[in-house]
């Protein structure tokens, strides 16, 4: 202990305090403050960057979800439209079919009517011609009979043969 006390140099103690306090003040002002501020700034910067990255990621996710929703909606809409289109198509086809059928029925009916009337007129004409022919034959027969019995008979035969062709 005595040695320690003897070794204690007041001058060195004095200089140590002066130098250390001076060093502390100088370093604090010119070194530690700028260094710590810069480091803090950098750390803040990193933190902010991470935060904004996280935010961007979230936004991205939201956007993706939105996109997905839009896509789904579009798909549903397309589905509906397709269905409607299919219905319209079916309806159009069936309408057209019905119309065509009606038209065809009508045409057939007209044709049948025309045939009927043609037939009727043909029958009427035939009747008239048969009547005229019969009259003519009867007239000729009568005339021939009047001239020759054999001839008349022959004629009747001939006539009949002709009439068959007719």
């Amino acid at each position, binding site marked *: 202990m005595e040695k*320690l006390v003897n070794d*204690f*140099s007041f001058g060195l103690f004095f*200089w140590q305090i002066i130098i250390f306090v001076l*060093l502390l003040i100088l370093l604090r002002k010119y070194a530690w403050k700028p260094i*710590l501020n810069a480091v803090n700034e950098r750390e803040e910067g990193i933190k902010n960057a991470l935060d904004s990255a996280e935010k961007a990621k979230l936004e991205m996710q939201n956007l993706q979800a939105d996109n997905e929703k839009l896509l789904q909606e579009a798909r549903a809409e397309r589905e509906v439209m397709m269905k409607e289109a299919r219905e319209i198509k079916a309806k159009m086809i069936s309408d057209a079919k019905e119309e065509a059928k009606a038209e065809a029925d009508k045409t057939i009916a007209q044709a049948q009517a025309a045939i009927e009337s043609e037939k009727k007129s043909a029958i009427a004409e035939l009747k008239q011609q048969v009547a005229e022919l019969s009259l003519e034959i009867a007239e000729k027969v009568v005339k021939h009979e009047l001239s020759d019995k054999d001839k008349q008979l022959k004629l009747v035969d001939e006539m009949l043969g002709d009439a068959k062709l007719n």
Partner: protein
Amino acid sequence: MYFCTDFKDTVICSKMQRKTLVRILSVLLFIGSFSAVAQDHGMDVKEIAPGKEGNKTKKEEIKEFINHHLLDSHSFNLFGSTDEETGETHHYGFPLPVIIWDEGLHTFMSSEFGHGDEIVESNGKYYALHHEKIYRTDAQGTLNYDAEHGDHPTNVRPLDFSITKSVVMMLVVGLLLIWLFRSLAKSYAKNGSLPKGIGRFFEPIVLYIRDDIAIANIGEHKYKKYLPFLLTIFFFIWFLNMFGLTPLGVNVTGNIAVTTALAIIVFLITTFTGTKDYWKHIFDPLGSGMPWAGKILIYIILVPIEILGLFIKPFALLIRLYANMTAGHVVLMSLIGLIFIFKSWIGGPLSFGLSFAISLIELLVALLQAYIFTMLAALYFGFASETHAEHEAHEGEIQHL
């Protein structure tokens, strides 16, 4: 500085930080070993120059050399050599100014003491140097001894404000620190808040002190006030310790006056930044947990212990640093001294190997002591700045200390 310019690519550089650390350590180790060799050399000179004081044994001589090495010095000796023919010792170095307050200011250069054996006359007063201490004496240079003081003269010792070797080293370290950290601070501005050069090595240390010493011990809210002090004291002690291991071998942190000054600063900061809760903890540690009648009995013992603790804490700081650094130097020097005692092919290399190993340990101790001093200072500041709310949270941590 060299370790970062080696790698042009800064990205690689940051990845190489581990490698860089290893490199720095190996350089430091080299310096350490160099110091051992250099100190060897110093011994050698003494050893072949028994000249003046004649018949001292080698052991005494080594002991004296070690004691001399541990002391502060008024001149800066780099090395000495002995003229083989005349037996005279020449010292190479430079003198330092001596400033004495002895009923007036006396200033002269330390070279006027010669090699410590001449009397200096200044303004009508005479001074002599004895074991690196200045004593007032008469024209003949008489030094009085008595039985009570043993080896120390009883002559008056004037107040000595000399710029000694230690003061020079402190100034050098101070300037080095200012230059180093000023350049680190500037490199942030230039380099987009990234450190450059040697700052890459020191920035993690600064951050470690901030995060694991200051914030861990003082707390998130108040650490900013103490951080500049903690950083300064850490690097100051560390650098001085490291310089103590260089061939210059200046044992600054192993000087009781230096450690006392540092401990007193810590004590003053602790005392003047103490919160109400801190003082309450000292004078009324139990608080309202007990009736006053019971408290008085306990406080008769407890309060004096707490008050004593105020002074013991910084005292432990100063003794720890002083003793560790001094012990390291003594061990190192003794091992080197063994070389000259053994003086054999086995003893020499063995002692050298041992002193080399101790040098490596001393490098670790240099860092460790700086860390411990800073850590404990932070802990004391943490106690002092504690408020009640934080106190509860800290309780668990303090208990296991």
